[in-house]
């Protein structure tokens, strides 16, 4: 835990950014970006979350162990998401069967 007192203006600055990003994310949602829409929304949300973690939750000023713990949660969440979605995203993939020797390398 930090004994360092974060200056108030940092809090206000972060707050203003968060509100601004909320407005932007609403605005961007109405642009037709195709597949990008989702990634932009995810990017903005992650940016906001990072600000909250670093400044409101004081991780920016905290001991390394806290960094480690915060990162661990994030990394395992990504593992859960990526390896689970790995299945439905690739269900349509077909593998060539005629040439057994090469079969695992070829996509049809």
């Amino acid at each position: 835990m930090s004994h360092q007192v974060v200056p108030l203006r940092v809090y206000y600055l972060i707050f203003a950014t968060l509100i601004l990003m909320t407005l932007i994310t609403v605005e961007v949602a109405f642009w037709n970006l195709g597949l990008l829409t989702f990634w932009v929304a995810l990017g903005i949300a992650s940016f906001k979350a990072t600000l909250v973690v670093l400044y409101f939750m004081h991780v920016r000023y905290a001991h390394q162990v806290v960094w480690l713990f915060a990162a661990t949660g994030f990394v395992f969440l990504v593992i859960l998401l990526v390896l689970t979605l790995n299945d439905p995203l690739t269900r349509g993939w077909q593998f060539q069967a005629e040439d057994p020797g090469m079969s695992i390398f070829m996509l049809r």
Partner: protein
Amino acid sequence: MSNTALTEPAENYLTAGYGLKSWLLTTDHKRIAILYLITITVFFAIGGFFAVLIRMELLTPQGDLVGSDTYNKLFTLHGLVMIFFFLVPSIPAVLGNFLIPIMIGARDLAFPRINLLSWYILVIGGTVSFAVILFGGVDTGWTFYTPYSSTYSKTSVSLVAIGVFITGFSSILTGLNFAVTIHKMRAPGMTWFRLPLFVWAHYATSLIMLLGTPVVAIAILLVLLERVFGVGIFDPALGGDPVLFQHLFWFYSHPAVYIMILPSMGVISELVCCFTRKRVFGYSFIAFSSLAIAVLGFLVWGHHMFVSSQSIYAGMVFSVLTMLVAIPSAIKVFNWTATMYKGSISYETPMMYTFGFVGLFAIGGLTGLFLGTLGVDVHVHDTYFVVAHFHYIMVGGAIMGYLGGLHFWWPKITGRLYNEAWAKLSAVLIFIGFNLTFFPQFLVGYLGMPRRYHVYPEEFQIFHVLSTAGASLLAVAYVFPTFYLIYSFFKGEKAGANPWGATGLEWQVPSPPTTFNFETTPVVTEEAYEYSKREAQVV
């Protein structure tokens, strides 16, 4: 620490209070460990009773002892009790709870009240789950596969789901407590690389408990919601996909296997060093392989789903990752073996369990390769081959480690010595009984006998007869320790602080330890397992 012989203190943690209240409201990690010991022994007996009924039923192919509904409830309850209420808490909650603070030179765990709370949660979760027996049992298998569990089963799935959900929090809080304790409560000089490997193993275990348990809690909660409110989450008739449940379930339940085996590996690392009187071979490799197992263990769950209609590509990813997780386990086994090289090996009971563990775990681990290999797993998936494999890991591995550890630290816990002859006899009987029970199951599994079968084709009978014979021996052998250990608690010879001549802070405090473990905070100045520097010091 000085090596002065310890005089017996006026009061130890066992004599610090006698009333029921002094036990039920205790925050002493050692007393809580005893509470856990009693609780999980009861759970083990119940789960074992179900196993005996299962084995008796399978003696004949016809299914004549119990009906198919009863049989299905028996294997479900056997799995549920053994996994959630015995194996997951076993070594961490009993031995870990008792030893981690002492091993790292702390007066208690970081959060003693949370520690007591997790015991109560386990008891409440257990009570709720066992209440289903009164309400007609549950027949989904411990895996709760949807849509059978969420829509079709007519048994008390909801109640047991609540029980398991509650129990999950016991595990989470234990993991939280251990992880924080190991980070923050180490005595001066107790650096990470001076920690006993038992502590490293528990650190890795608590990581899995923290990260995996919430996911299975949510998976089970979703089943409960689907069942109670009829909303479609997993049932295709309601718009969902049952395969999602399998993903969420195995995300926890595969790493849960490592919750069971990692602490056992930690115990074996201690025992090998003590009974060879040598520093462990490749300390940092064993320590990091624990962490590697914990992390890689989260990447392989899909190998339970090779025939589930998961995409072929996903199957390949999970298969190659499964191959990777085999490596750290192999590293550990080789390092233990190398530790024995040029050692001074004695054959006391804990070492007998160590030999047993290495043999059985090797078989269990190597047969895992068949299951991680895509082409072969298609054939052996959901057969007795799988049953045999995970019993080799979870009974042959985890319980051998648990019993070995219990025998090793029993003099520390109770201050008394048990009868060595009886203990050796039961160790040998457990080893023989275990192999007789489960080795035939590999054969009948490759023949194609599916698991969870109440009646089966006649040509498989001989394997089941062998298995049941082994199980009878195993059941008797498991009862022995209950008697001689309890006897020793009252009548056993006084043990002294360090009956094995072992290193480690826990052997430098009196047996049984005092309530706050150390009179003054110890300062650690040497590596773990410095047996060569130590005088022959059996106290």
